[in-house]
């Protein structure tokens, strides 16, 4: 990735903000791990659209990781006001179904789920906030990087043919996947 492209951060941040927003909204946030991957995909797609550069896997990973961290920040911030809204939504539409499944299996629900069903939200202390932010950022950065690498393969631009390089002779180890 060429350092002369100053637009590196914009697509990553934009994709990250969108992914983080979706990861915090009621209903759609049930696919929590999907959104940072989608953010990484989107970051690479937006970058490819506005530049002529051909990205490599490592470039995609960097873009995706930036998008993932941005998504984590946005998600953590919007969950503060939306926490109770999310809980009410889950209590109305999701928990009854989950409780039925647990009852059918004869197993008690895990303690943290039991607390949420009773409407007990975990206390939001500064320590809890920063710990949650740190862990989410680490997880989303990894997932975003994965999404970015996958996107490089999915949205690969065709490069102009270049002179033959003897090092590019077919190697038996170069097999798909």
């Amino acid at each position, binding site marked *: 990735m060429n350092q002369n492209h100053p637009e590196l951060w914009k697509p990553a941040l934009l994709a990250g903000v969108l992914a983080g927003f979706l990861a915090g909204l009621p209903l759609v946030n049930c696919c*929590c*791990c999907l959104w940072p991957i989608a953010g990484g995909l989107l970051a690479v797609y937006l970058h490819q659209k506005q530049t002529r550069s051909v990205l*490599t*896997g*490592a470039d*995609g*990973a960097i873009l995706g990781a930036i998008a993932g961290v941005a998504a984590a920040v946005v998600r953590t911030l919007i969950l503060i006001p939306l926490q109770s809204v999310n809980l009410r939504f889950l209590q109305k539409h999701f928990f009854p179904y*989950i409780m039925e*499944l*647990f009852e*059918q*299996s*004869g*197993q008690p629900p*895990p*303690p*943290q*789920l039991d607390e949420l069903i009773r409407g007990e939200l975990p206390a939001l202390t500064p320590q809890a906030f920063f710990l949650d932010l740190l862990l989410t950022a680490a997880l989303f950065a990894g997932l975003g*990087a*994965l999404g970015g*690498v*996958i996107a*490089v*393969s*999915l949205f*690969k631009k065709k490069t102009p043919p270049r002179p033959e*390089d003897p*090092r*590019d002779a077919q*190697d038996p*180890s*170069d*097999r*798909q*996947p």
Partner: protein
Amino acid sequence: MSALLPSGSRPPRAASVFYALSLTGAAFLVAAVCLAPWLASRGSSLAAPLYRLFSHVCHQIPSRCFHIFGHPMAVCGRCLGVYLGILFGCVIYPLWRGMNNIRLPDRRVFLAFSLPLAADVLGNAFGFWDSGVWLRLASGFLWGALLPFYFLAAAAEWAFRGLAITRGSK
């Protein structure tokens, strides 16, 4: 950078370290998922925190989990399939492609490996069918097995790029 680096060249230490960490991490994940029910069967107080850790990434609905030692595993069959697939992919990666190959899989390969998982998730979500745990495991395994071919290739490219920069500056 050529997708295939000169044959016979050893991968940089960073690529090897990343590979080792990935393999160890995947093995640890699978072990932790299996450890939770064993701890629960022993009445250990460590079982609950372990289940709680995985609750952040999985619904843990017992009917969708494999059961060992009389207790559900820490993640559902699909998540377990993804973790097992990643572990399998990490194991075969150096054997299948070698650590010097930085070419990413073709998009058609990605779509072929992802389609069963996507179809299974959407089919269950919209109520068209209710997949058994084994089918969830299989679709997750297929997708998980492909993922190392992305992140290990990207890590190898990053390591080689760093090595090229280091050698160029000497």
